């Protein structure tokens, strides 16, 4: 039996029958990688917002030590911006449907996981710094920070704040990461698994 002959007949009769939706290009996609791209874009937007907020706080902060703290936070968020931007660019350049599918998806999955892992780990050092900045900013509204820091109880309060806020912030960040990236990464992992198991 010549399958190619049967195939030609099938093509004429059934396969090339029109489907609904031809015409314009609707510039939206339901693809999990596109959703990841959107999440990274949103993350970049938030980083820019935080940068603006820190810039504003650095300007209005009445004391130099607080201004320095805010500038430190701005530098940290520049690193976050670069990390997210690099990952976004990697996904955008790798995500092509005319390439080897398994390699493409695997590369995007690995790179995104690596980037998120780096951000999660670095956040453990950032949260204490952020808590300290917030603490100093709050103090600076009514008192001279340098003088107040001579008080032992202020240091104890600062340590307690850091001890409480760091794990709490980490927990919240992990939950947000799960919402923004987790389900799409899971979909990607499933797809890669399915493709690998079939090949």
């Amino acid at each position, binding site marked *: 039996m010549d399958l190619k002959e049967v195939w030609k007949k099938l093509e004429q009769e059934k396969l090339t029958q029109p489907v609904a939706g031809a015409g314009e290009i609707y510039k939206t996609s339901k693809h999990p990688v596109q959703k990841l791209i959107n999440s990274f874009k949103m993350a970049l937007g938030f980083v820019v917002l935080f940068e603006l907020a820190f810039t504003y706080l650095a300007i209005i902060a009445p004391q130099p030590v607080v201004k320095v703290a805010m500038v430190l936070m701005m530098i940290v968020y520049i690193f976050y911006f670069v990390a997210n931007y690099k990952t976004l660019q990697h996904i955008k350049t790798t995500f092509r*449907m005319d390439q080897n599918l398994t390699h493409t998806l695997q590369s995007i999955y690995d790179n995104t996981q690596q980037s998120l892992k780096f951000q999660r780990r670095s956040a453990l050092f950032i949260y204490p710094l952020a808590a300290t900045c917030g603490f100093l900013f709050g103090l600076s509204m009514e008192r001279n920070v340098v003088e107040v820091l001579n008080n032992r109880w202020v240091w104890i309060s600062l340590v307690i704040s850091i001890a409480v806020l760091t794990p709490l912030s980490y927990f919240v960040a992990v939950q947000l990461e799960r919402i923004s990236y987790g389900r799409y990464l899971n979909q990607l992992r499933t797809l890669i698994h399915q493709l690998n198991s079939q*090949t």
Partner: protein
Amino acid sequence: MPVSEKEFIALVNENRGIIYKVIRLYINQEEDTRDLYQEIVFQAWKSYPRFDGRSKFSTWLYRVGLNTVLTFKRKPVVVIPHEDLASLHVAQTKTNTDESEALYVAIRQLPEVDRMIITLHLDGYENEEIAEITGLTKNNTAVKLHRIKDILIKKLKAE
């Protein structure tokens, strides 16, 4: 060479039979077809700036279509109760006497990647090209293709 959106749509429209074919081979639910058509065209539009023209546009679009359909999140297929399945099979064999219809049914029963391999083969692609598109080795492609053809011929003869 950059093309406008209008020119690109014209190019896609000239080759839309390829997209229809991909959709008809992989989609069970009619309501998914519109979304998938749009997804394929969108992915092609995004990838097109890097289309280098080494292959024909139709070949390139075929690849984009197949890759998109494999990663498209389809609505779950409605599960048919076992007793209804038996009556459906009888109805199918009564009406689908034509060989091409039987081939269509047989191909759609294959795993997705196997479906991709056999359709590329039937459309005249060489094993090397199929290997490149699917990410398999050339040898693995040849082995799989041989096995798939055996399965299909057996099924068609059994009809």
